[in-house]
């Protein structure tokens, strides 16, 4: 099945979920759970916490399906955003006591993102983002990727890449502004 068909099938299932159709939620779950579990696990680095968050994600999808607008967002992107937000909130509540993530542990599971990005079939959206990221300073692009995939704060990224906090903020903010200008072109 091609990507467009998968996308419209998933969008249709989400619209049914909005109508209270539990069977449709199961279809949505089957089609997306491995991807969303991967996303949560990558951020939380803890299976049991990622499982908790994954449950929470689908309960949120159930409650919020009516706000999904198939004309505006791709269904998988909408769900990835929910999963990342839940996982990042969990991560922040864990480190709220001042304990930072052990950087070594984070590094151990982070894979070389650019290579992975190259491996996936590059749809138009991918190509565009990849091209715009390439226009950035390599360190800025790499900080942006790491921030997205690991949900790391400025402090954690600064420690991980061994630069002052102000430098990390400046890298990412400049990178984002440049990225935005490029994506709008």
């Amino acid at each position, binding site marked *: 099945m091609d990507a467009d068909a998968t996308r419209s099938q998933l969008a249709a299932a989400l619209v049914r979920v909005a*109508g*209270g*159709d*539990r069977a449709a939620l199961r279809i949505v779950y089957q089609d997306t759970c*491995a991807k969303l579990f*991967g996303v949560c696990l990558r951020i939380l680095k803890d299976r049991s916490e990622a499982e908790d968050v*994954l449950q929470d994600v689908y309960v949120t999808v159930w409650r919020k399906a009516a706000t999904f607008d198939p004309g505006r967002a791709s269904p998988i992107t909408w769900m990835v*955003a929910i999963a990342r937000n839940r996982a990042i909130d969990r991560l922040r509540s864990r480190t709220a006591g001042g304990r930072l993530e052990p950087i070594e542990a984070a590094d151990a599971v982070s894979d070389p993102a650019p290579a992975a990005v190259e491996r996936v079939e590059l749809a138009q959206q991918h190509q565009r983002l990849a091209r715009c990221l390439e226009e950035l300073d390599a360190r800025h692009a790499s900080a942006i990727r790491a921030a997205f*995939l690991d949900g790391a704060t400025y402090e954690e990224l600064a420690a991980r890449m061994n630069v002052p906090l102000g430098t990390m903020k400046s890298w990412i903010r400049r990178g984002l502004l440049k990225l935005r200008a490029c994506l709008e072109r």
Partner: protein
Amino acid sequence: MSDDDTIDPADRGKLIAAEYVLGVLGAEERREVERRLAQEPALASEVAFWEERLGVLADAVAPVTPPQHTWSQIEAAIPAAAAARPTSLWQSLAFWRGFGIAAAALAAASIAALAYVGLVPATRAPLMATLAGTSGQPNFVAAVTATGDNLIVVPATLLTSDPRAIELWLILPNQRPRSLGLIPPGQPIRLSIPPDLAGRLTPDAALAVSLEPPGGSPTGQPTGPVIASGKLTGL
């Protein structure tokens, strides 16, 4: 702040959305952005921009199959569907049973359309139309949003792969049809109703669907066969 002083203040305002989506903000800053999202459409649309653009980065993450028991826990955590719905909706759906085999698909599409427009907290009586063809077979369900300025159209049956465009028309008493836009085959769509027509979607009006050349009717009036039509009715 030294790390900020060379960034344009106008850009700083936009950056907060990107920083939120990227995930670099702390818990309190995240709550602050979420509070603002409900009140600031510009911020919400900036967040949507970044979610859509950066979202593809998630493809770099390897999928991992969650354990079997996760699904049953999710199922246990969601309320039973019927209990959450107003009974009047179910009663009003009852007449659709007569349509036979298409009824189930139609009912699903109708409920989807209603839930999608946010029926439950609706401030005015929802308006719906079942658009049927000459055989009586329902082809589309349309529902007007609570605000009266959007129309959700959900296909109730699969359409053949006809290359022609599917165009939706508003039929008002004693007036020429007005186009409401094109409908993609096989998927639900939200159409915004032109401001001058927003108040005209009443139980006097009807909707019709015609097949037109790619891109829609060249004349502004239906030129191809009308494949479905139906009156708007209040629930």
